[in-house]
């Protein structure tokens, strides 16, 4: 289980993003991408805390937030699982929201480079085509 937790999540220290935020985003990404399906169990708070050497409060803060947002559900008994309506049922809008932080950073850099919106948008469209 410890290995499972260690492989599931990766956190980076020294980031401007708090660790609980990093965990929240990672779970959302795994669920959105279908790597975790509704009903799949998550490693316990204690296992994640041990595997990543984190304060357990940080992990439970992330789990509680995910529960509040409906991504995770508390299992009868113990632990958390991916909520029934999460994942596949997640609309394009919610998945797009996951992209927002990355785009915000890109937008900031674009402004620093004093690029106009049209140039940036057409560059993004070009990149999307290249990746397709």
């Amino acid at each position, binding site marked *: 289980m410890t290995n499972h937790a260690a492989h599931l999540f990766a956190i980076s*220290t*020294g*980031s*401007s*993003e*708090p*660790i*609980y*935020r990093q965990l929240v985003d990672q779970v959302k990404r795994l669920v959105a991408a279908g790597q975790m399906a509704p009903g799949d169990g998550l490693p316990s708070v*204690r296992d994640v*805390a*041990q595997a*990543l*050497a*984190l*304060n*357990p*409060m*940080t992990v439970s*803060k992330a789990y509680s937030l995910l529960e509040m947002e409906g991504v995770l559900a508390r299992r009868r008994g113990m632990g958390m699982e991916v909520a029934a309506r999460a994942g596949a049922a997640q609309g394009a809008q919610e998945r797009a929201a996951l992209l927002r932080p990355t785009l915000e950073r890109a937008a*900031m850099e674009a*402004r*620093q480079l004093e690029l106009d919106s049209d140039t940036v948008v057409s560059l993004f469209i070009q990149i999307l085509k290249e990746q397709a």
Partner: protein
Amino acid sequence: MTTAIIQSAGLGKHFGSATILDGLDWQIAPGQVVGLLGRNGAGKSTLLECLLGLREPDAGVVRIYGEDVGQLSDATRARIGYVPQKSDLFEWMTPRQMLGYFKAFYPRWNNAKVDNLLLRWGFDKLMQDKPISKLSGGEQQRLSIIRALAHDPELLVLDEPVSALDPVGRREFLRELIDGVIERGTTVVFSTHILSDLERVALDLAFLKDGKIALQGRLDDLLEGARRVVGPASLLDGKRLAGELRRQRAQDGTVSIVTHGGAGLALLGQEAGVRVEPLSLEDLFIEVTQ
């Protein structure tokens, strides 16, 4: 509001003409895990020593569990664990003798934990009977940590506990801190320069600067609120931002402001020529303590 475990008010300490602590007020609540940050020579060790009654302040009072720190009862003393930055005491003893010696002072002593930690942290029979003076710096530090954890303290104070440990040793220590200490609800105060370790375990931070606690708060809140705003003086000179920590003006008239009141800066960030950036803990450390 629960009563603070450590309460200090107006704490002052001078060394010669140098003011180390300058009317410092600080409180630690039960169950807090607090990282104490500050530059070299800021007085972190002096502060921790004053808080524990190991050094007499020139001014102010400290109370631990409601008792004056100068006159702690044995019962309260037994609730506290302390790892000094450098312990050069008992060097002539062996680890086995030193632990046996300390065991006699405490009403509670967790033999199983001590044996387990000795085993896990590489103290074999041979090493347990070697004079402490012959151990490496890292081994001495590990021994000092084992000693401080042996009586299952309710308040654990650590002064640069991992400075002599390599990354593997640091990780082992963090795991023990998480599993054996924090999970039990122990209140922890520790100073360190290793910010990555701090981010992993501390929930609260306090920055010591100019003899006072310059900034403190939840680590998550500080990171989420910390922003650097850079823009032309014409726009920023007249603006006072909430939670400003530092304001600088470059030769070219660019103003750079660091604040910890991040919310509400989004609009400012829309203005032409203004940049709002998040900060890492390292950035924040530099901005607050400089």
